[in-house]
């Protein structure tokens, strides 16, 4: 089957029910997307399909309905997305393992809702678990990113 990831089209030969997470990680060697729970409980595997945040561990390869963007496609160290800049500015990460998913979730939130309230942030980000407990900084970084995007 064909998959477009970060603007590049790939031909992959996988089972229909292989989760997109593992197609990305093990077949295409795109490692920014993380395996945490496999059951949509932690959000570490969050990617965008046509701009919408989805849990790639619960999205079967055959069901991918559009272009896939991973954290590598959101921005790069040389050309960071506003969300990544804000994550950097607030030094959000500790272990950092959940942060790709957090940033993808936050970018999707801000694309839909450029000026989220605290309650909006709670609702959108609650499915993304951070075992290191960086929530204070995540909240602050989402707000900074919102400001950056509005100014842009």
């Amino acid at each position: 089957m064909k998959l477009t990831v970060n603007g590049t089209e790939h031909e992959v030969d996988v089972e229909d029910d292989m989760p997109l997470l593992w197609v990305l990680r093990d077949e295409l060697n795109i490692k920014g997307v993380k395996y945490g729970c496999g059951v949509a409980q932690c959000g570490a595997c969050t990617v965008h399909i046509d701009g919408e945040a989805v849990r790639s561990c619960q999205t079967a390869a055959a069901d991918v309905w559009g272009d896939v963007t991973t954290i590598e496609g959101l921005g790069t160290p040389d050309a960071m997305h506003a969300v990544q800049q804000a994550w950097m500015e607030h030094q959000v990460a500790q272990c950092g393992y959940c942060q790709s998913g957090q940033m993808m979730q936050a970018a999707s939130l801000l694309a839909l809702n450029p000026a989220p309230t605290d309650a909006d942030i709670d609702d959108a980000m609650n499915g993304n678990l951070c075992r290191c407990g960086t929530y204070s900084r995540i909240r602050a970084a989402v707000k900074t990113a919102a400001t950056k995007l509005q100014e842009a």
Partner: protein
Amino acid sequence: MGRIGKIARRTFLVGSAAVVGGVAFGYYAYKRPVSNPLLNDLAEGEAALTPYVKIDSAGITLITPRADSGQGAYHVQAALIAEELDVELDQVSVDPGMPDPAYYNTALSAEAAPFRSTDDGFAADTTRGIMDAMMKFMGMQITGGSTTVPDSFEKLRLAGAVARETLKAAAAEQTGADVSDLKTEKGAVILPGGGTIAYTELAATAATMDPVNDVTLRDPSTWRLVGKEMERVDILAKSTGTQAYGIDFEMDGMVHASVRTSPRGGMMNGFDAEAAREMRGVIDVVQVTDGVAVVADNTWRAIQAVNAIDVDWGPAPYPAEQAEHWQTLSDSFTSDHQDSRFRDDGDVDAALEGAEVVEAEYRAPYLAHAPLEPISAVVQVTDDRADVWTGTQIPRFVQTNVAKLTGLDTGQVFVHVLMMGGSFGHRLEDRVVREATEIAMQMEGAPVKLTYSREEDTVQNDTRQIAMARGRGAVKDGKVEAYDLGIAMPSVVASQMGRQGLPVPGPDLQIVAGAWEQPMQIPNYRVTGYRAPELAPVSSWRSVGASTNGFFHDVFLDELIHAAGADPMEERIRLCWHDPSRKTLEAVAEMSNWGSDLGPNKGRGVAFCMSFGVPTAEVVEVTNMDGAIKIDKVWVAAEVGRVIDPINFENMVQGGIVWALGHTMNSEITYADGMAEQRNYYDFEGMRLSQSPEIFVRGLENGDTVRGMGEPMVPPAAAALSNAIFAATGQRIREMPMNKHIDFV
């Protein structure tokens, strides 16, 4: 250790040794020198200036042997070296190096000796010295016990200083300038005329010289980095999804494996893998000790296939049902189980006789570590060497165990430590490496990546200890007069070290850690540890014994203070004899505006615990929302001697509070039919963003000893929450998780 102003040169003498192709510097002189690990792996033209600094024409590498599980260990270690070496953090690369006895952890032994962190007497120092020697002998390159900063604080700055002065000497030799006219800045020596020579251009000359050992550490007032806000060395990678973790490691020819071992921690009677063998991508089905693994061409296929194997598991070697575990603890408060009574002030029995006795019983459950990155390891075994790539806190144990399994010499086992996606003590165990090695030995030289499914990671987690405490106490004239606390738990140290084949003689300090050594002056004060029989396997979980005992000790103190009718803050301050500890209480009182009017349905609780030598006081503020508790705010004041990086410090403390309160609210591991009943985050949730309180942090620097802050914020948090809920509702919660007794928003 880490004593400010005293450089412990007896434990750190930098020497030199000639090697082929140059000179490398640095080994410990300590009766018998530990050899320099970098000498074995030096290329032509490289100079290893100390075990912590390597410079060649391509660049400067700082060796940071304490592992990074997210606590910023690489960053802190790099900053300490860079401070004296005069390099900027963006000019260097950071490498954990290979495991070696030279990187033994001297600070860990200070926590292993049974003396209070407040006790600087002769006996305490002497015993700590003996433990140092033992730790060195064992070559325990361990990351744990909040020891990275105390262990590194002088060693790494001294390493940086010796390297800097030697590079200056090399520049003097190269240019003929007087060394006293040379300065250093940003990775270069500055010549009298203003010209510069990069360190990388001096490496070859430095390799021919004796190291300059006569160095003086700089005065803290001149520090450029330490104590200042810095950009963490890994923050760019971790903000862009480009940080590679153990689970991301790839190499040519690698195959993927997943494993199941007995969920009852016992034997495997047999298995039927017929269906699994037919599944797409499956390369082989192999046995490991007490379990079975599938090797496949992809992680998902390996996990799917291993789950399709029908396995007959033997019985658990511990009680099958949770109620029996609790009963075992309950039965352990007897003299024949007594493990220690390090605290026995006044005459508790006499004080309680005839008094109105306050009694309470407390419980704390088994808990999983559940870092977000499931454990994994890549192992390749050939005839003459084995390589291990994994995130581990115990590289030396890993090396030894792989050598034993393969029959290779330890010198033929190479452990490459990778970045960890969290640990919290989980990666102080190495079962994943042992299993990956067993699989790799059956795969004829192919590198094998073993990845646990989340479910396997949870079920096989060597948990935090289960624990129970019983308090009896009395008050008199509005003051706490008698305090008697007994704590029963299985020995974490015996369980954990038992899996490494190491016997641990004597009492287990962790059974009473966070309770017996509290700097409280209660006239009649006794803390007794009872060693329960071994139950389910237990291991070090962030703050270890103190994670349960800080809760027990302080909630019981709070109950007595309330019985005395005293103010919880004022009475703790009155009872506290240790000046730096009292200042943490005073600070947190000031930060939280203790005593101010909160309005209806709100409550505040204070708690104090000294653990890992760090006095830590916390205030939690909650609102009772129609019977459900919302945690609004938390204030933390901790005495650490020196804050290395205020940003990293604040982030870690805030995270530790989220960690502690999350588990306190809603998490436990329970056993039924010999198996952990919890499988994934849906039944082991922790805290979510919407529940996360505002957390205010202050690091105090009144003490004379530098301490690490990876764990000490954890022990008081549950107690402060219980005390706050009592203040808001009148309901006293004596058991974790607290959602067994009250709802949370």
